């Protein structure tokens, strides 16, 4: 009967609010002819209130409601129903002429009107959240993903929070299991552990959420079941080792449906993302606009939906270009300087380039000394050194300091085949070609 609570409670609330209002109006000699209706309306409201109380009680047994707001809602509801009943009794049987009875009725009805508002508000918070007029999508900011995003905290715990913790919390461990955080999940319940790392189908939790819905062991027994994508996310997390710290870069999703689900619902991208895909780039300024206009062949906007810029340096480049670009050094993300004969000295004219992620220096004369200075550019993800006179030493000095490097091209350099396989072995996170 718990499902009927919302319907009945709104009826009761309306009546219990209208009765004091009407009483107040009749006291002001307005709508005086309706004064006899106050008693019946309040009586009906109180009656409905009692039914609402009972259906609410039924609803609470599902375990989906807990916490301070819930306790307050229940307490206030009792109070309202009791006050309403006393007020009704006084309205019918009390002698309004006596000062005591007259004041008591006014006081009770006033309290009833105020309390019904507070009670209703608490009930609303339980079902619609604190600020139902503001839609808060379940999204994580991409910056957050970069630093600390983990599959468990970012994708799995939110599922438990929305669909399981009502019954599986510290104070109320149904089946001895709490699902409030990673530790409580791994502790398991009365039947033992619920997660077997790497073994989706041996994991009790996975079994219980994928049973037939008519089974008494199916979870959750009431409320919204886990949807297909949530179940698959949990399966992905278990299959890839069920670690607290695992993330989507080391364990990317493979199912396209799941990838787009995570992207749309959580705002999280799958697999490796370049820095410039995670951020939109520095603010678009007049400086940027001017340089784009002045050097249309050399400086280009990478895409219409981002503020990142690409810079092309050819063999006819001028120092003036480099110096001017240094004014917008934070906006530059890609530099193509193949066959340009640029030196490290000229290159440093471009400024600190904190967001440079792609750099092509093929067919230039960069040696160990020059290449190792590239550690000063902290964001480089792709570096092309094809046909430069750089040896193993320079490459290793660079790789020891280049933390974001993902791919490095060292064909036709002084690095020998044997040295190259050594580098590939020692820097497993970097693709060396």
């Amino acid at each position, binding site marked *: 009967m718990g499902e009927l609570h919302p319907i009945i409670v709104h009826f009761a609330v309306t009546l219990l609010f209208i009765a004091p209002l009407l009483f107040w109006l009749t006291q002001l000699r307005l709508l005086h002819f309706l004064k006899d209706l106050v008693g019946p309306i309040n009586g009906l409201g109180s009656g409905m209130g009692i039914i609402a109380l009972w259906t609410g009680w039924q609803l609470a047994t599902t375990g989906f409601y807990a916490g301070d707001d819930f306790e307050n809602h229940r307490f206030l509801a009792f109070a309202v129903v009791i006050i309403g009943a006393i007020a009704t009794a006084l309205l019918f049987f009390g002698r309004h002429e006596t000062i005591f009875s007259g004041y008591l009725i006014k006081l009770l009805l006033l309290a009833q009107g105020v309390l019904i508002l507070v009670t209703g508000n608490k009930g609303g918070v339980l079902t619609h959240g604190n600020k139902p007029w503001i839609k808060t999508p379940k999204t994580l900011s991409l910056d957050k993903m970069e630093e600390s995003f983990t599959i468990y905290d970012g994708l799995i715990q939110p599922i438990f929070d929305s669909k399981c913790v009502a019954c599986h919390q510290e104070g109320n461990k149904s089946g001895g299991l709490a699902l409030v955080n990673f530790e409580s999940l791994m502790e398991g319940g009365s039947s033992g552990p619920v997660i077997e790392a790497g073994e989706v189908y041996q994991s009790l939790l996975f079994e219980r959420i994928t049973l037939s819905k008519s089974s008494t062991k199916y979870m959750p027994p009431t409320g919204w079941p886990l949807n297909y994508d949530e179940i698959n996310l949990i399966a992905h997390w278990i299959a890839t080792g069920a670690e607290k710290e695992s993330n989507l870069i080391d364990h990317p999703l493979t199912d396209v449906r799941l*990838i787009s689900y995570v992207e749309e619902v959580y705002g999280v991208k799958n697999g490796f993302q370049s820095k410039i895909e995670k951020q939109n780039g520095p603010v678009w300024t007049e400086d940027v606009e001017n340089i784009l206009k002045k050097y*249309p*062949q050399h400086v280009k906007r*990478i895409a*219409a939906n*981002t503020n990142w810029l690409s810079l092309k340096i050819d063999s006819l480049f001028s120092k003036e270009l480099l110096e001017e670009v240094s004014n917008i050094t934070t906006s530059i993300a890609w530099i193509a300087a193949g066959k340009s004969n640029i030196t490290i000295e000229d290159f440093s004219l471009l400024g600190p380039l904190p967001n440079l992620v792609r750099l092509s220096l093929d067919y230039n004369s960069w040696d160990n000394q020059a290449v190792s200075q590239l550690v000063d550019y902290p964001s480089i993800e792709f570096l092309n050194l*094809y046909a430069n006179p750089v040896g193993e030493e320079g490459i290793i000095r660079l790789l020891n300091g280049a933390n974001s490097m993902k791919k490095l091209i060292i064909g036709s350099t002084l690095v020998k085949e044997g040295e190259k396989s050594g580098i590939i072995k020692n820097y497993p996170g970097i693709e060396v070609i």
Partner: protein
Amino acid sequence: MNLLDEALFERHQLSTRRHFLKACATGLGSMAMGSLLGATDPQTPHFIPKAKRVIFLHMAGAPSQLELFDYKPLLKELNGKDCPPSLLEGKRFAFISGVPQMLGPQANFARHGQSGAWISDLLPHFSKMADDVCFLKAMHTDEFNHAPAQLLFYSGSPRLGRPSMGSWVTYGLGSMNENLPSFVVLVSGGKTPSAGKSVWGSGFLPSIYQGVQCRSKGEPVLFAANPNGMSASERKKTIEAINQINEKKYQTFKDPETLTRIGQYEMAFKMQMSVPEAMDIQQEPDYIHEMYGTEPGRASFANNCLLARRLAERDVRFIQLFHWGWDSHGASSGESLDNGFLQRCKEVDQPMSALLKDLKQRGLLDDTIVVWGGEFGRTPMLENRNGVANPFVGRDHQTDAFTIWMAGGGIKGGLSYGETDEIGYSGIKNRVHVHDMQATILHNLGLHHEELTYHFQGRDFRLTDTAGNVVKEILA
């Protein structure tokens, strides 16, 4: 709108200021000499691209997937048996009539690379590249004849008149090298593709976006070099004078194609210097020639592959190779699976593998999409033209299932995507239509295929027409 209205409308369009500004593809500023063809291109990708350029290796005539990539052991068992009527009902073929016999694979297959991709022994070099490419094994198209199928493949429509993929891409992204055309076509195999030059035509887009065919033998571009007795400075003066006249012409008639003409004179002048340099494969060291198996002085696929790499290095946006001679019906020795086809495989195997390897070692494969394929596939049945078995072994055209591969530029390597039935007659899983392939290529270039449009004859046209889905599963 009736015809007359349309004509009047067109004429007004030609003489309004707004249209003038819009029709100068690169804006009014480009009226200044020397920058029409790219320098000030305002075109920007819609979102961050994975690739900057495309190299398309088209095997004109449609190679048999059943001899190269789509291994069907069951077909071997069925070899020589009559095709059951259920496979023929309601089907249309180019030549098969009556009841053909099934034809087993005419090559031996093995799995290659860590990904275990099936590749036949006809492509020994290429099988070493298995982990770098993504096979689309359940491609399908709507057209079973060469010309319309090629048109569909490149222009999104089987009929003439639409811009080709290379034109759309250069229209959408602009030029990266102001001294070379953005869209270059190289043809080998002795014949241009059946659909003719329309597969690199610009359709209703301004004609500066059409592909420029370069020859790999003799002068790369005919009539671009100065004739005897004409010095470069004299030529420059001539072109300046012609362009001045053309500009006057433009002032009078306001035809945007006049602007294209001015730009093309400029481009031709620059190409006198830049094209011979780019097309001179003699500059390459010996080991590169060995790697590609080039034959200097000939119009070969190997030479064209090497040229493709040189053009990619020079930031040509769209490089389109056609190699003719894959139409293995079995009607003649040259067009049969037991002769001509084997020859073609030999011609392309080493160069296309070398191209992939070379692009990869230079770091170019990261932002270059390489696509290999024909316009459709071939039947699991032996072709019996007019009901009589052909003199040589061959297969007929097939639209329902064929294999292409893609590599680089944001495409996942070492993946076989899609599956055909036990005899390779139809795709049964993860089918990819030609429009989907086009949408995916545009996607990796940073373009929404639904937003890259051109207004013509009252509606916004696009490459993928009214279809196409990006195949997200194959994106790296």
